[in-house]
């Protein structure tokens, strides 16, 4: 399981763009293109390298009707999947 204390950020080979609350990602190395739904797109937007997984989950709780526990589990899983696809990278928060 991905640590909730890491900060996700776009992978250098990934390009993303929001359109009508959804995100379209292009993975340059493979040429793969994918669409993220509204919550997935929101997590992608928030994964800018300044927030931890926990921070992102807290913002998701504020914006969507979901429990803190559920949000954290979902964000962890989603970020893990995007890391596996090389759409995101993760690194420890500065100072930790």
């Amino acid at each position: 399981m991905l640590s909730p204390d890491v900060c996700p950020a776009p992978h250098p080979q990934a390009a993303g763009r929001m359109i009508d609350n959804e995100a379209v990602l292009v993975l340059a190395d493979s040429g793969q293109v994918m669409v993220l739904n509204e919550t997935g797109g929101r997590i992608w937007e928030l994964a800018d390298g300044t927030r931890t997984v926990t921070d992102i989950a807290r913002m998701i709780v504020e914006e969507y009707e979901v429990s803190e526990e559920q949000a954290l589990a979902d964000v962890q899983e989603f970020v893990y999947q995007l890391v596996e696809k090389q759409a995101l990278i993760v690194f420890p928060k500065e100072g930790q």
Partner: protein
Amino acid sequence: MDEVRISVAGVCVALRINDAEVAERTRARYREFLAPDTTPDFVIDVAVHGREEVSPLMPRILEVTTSFHDDILTFESSFGEGKADFDAGYGMLSAAHLPMVRLLIENYLRILYAWYMVRIGGVLLHSAGVVKDKRAYLFFGPSGSGKSTITRLSMEHVVLSDDILIVRPVNGSFQVFGVPFRGELVYAPRANTRAPLVGIFRLRKAKEHRVELLSPARALAELVSCAPFVITDAAMAQRVMKICVELVRQVPVKELHFRKDSGFWRVIDAQS
């Protein structure tokens, strides 16, 4: 040195070829797109080495790799290599074997135009294009989705291409431009013309004709997937997406389910 100038989608390339026979064949090949009096945006020196080392009848796969760094496009294949400096407007193409020169020049030009279009706000798309009543319709999808079939069924109209087209904005609205590059229908016309883009259709083979509107994100993803060469670079992919977002905003993208008869035009016309 023999010079052949062609202009595609308003971008002129002067090919300076060191072989008169190759130059003549190139001139014939791109005759609808010749632009001898146009100031070139690019000057490309084409050097042909060797003549008969490879039989033109020998089946070969022309594998091409490209990269783009610091505004310099690099092109490599088993039959030659080339570069193009976008800032200088200068490039070179070195062809190792005469029989493969035609393919090599064609691929080099496809790649050059693909990358350069993004730089100037356009995009080269794997798509078929038809002009009907002075309005352009673009049909796209991966290989096998039906681009050539749609083209065959639209020969009574102006066919721009069955394979590749350029879309770029002119005075704020997107226009579709014909290109000389060939697809599956080798003898299909490739009109050197342009028309305002009014319809974009993702193709799906089906048993009946119908259209469905795609969500903007889905439309964007489908379009970007059909931009060859350029989305293998993250920064360029970002630019392609920016262009395609504008495109999707201006011209709604629909999914065209069609069977093999020209009745799909009635469905399209009913949407207009």
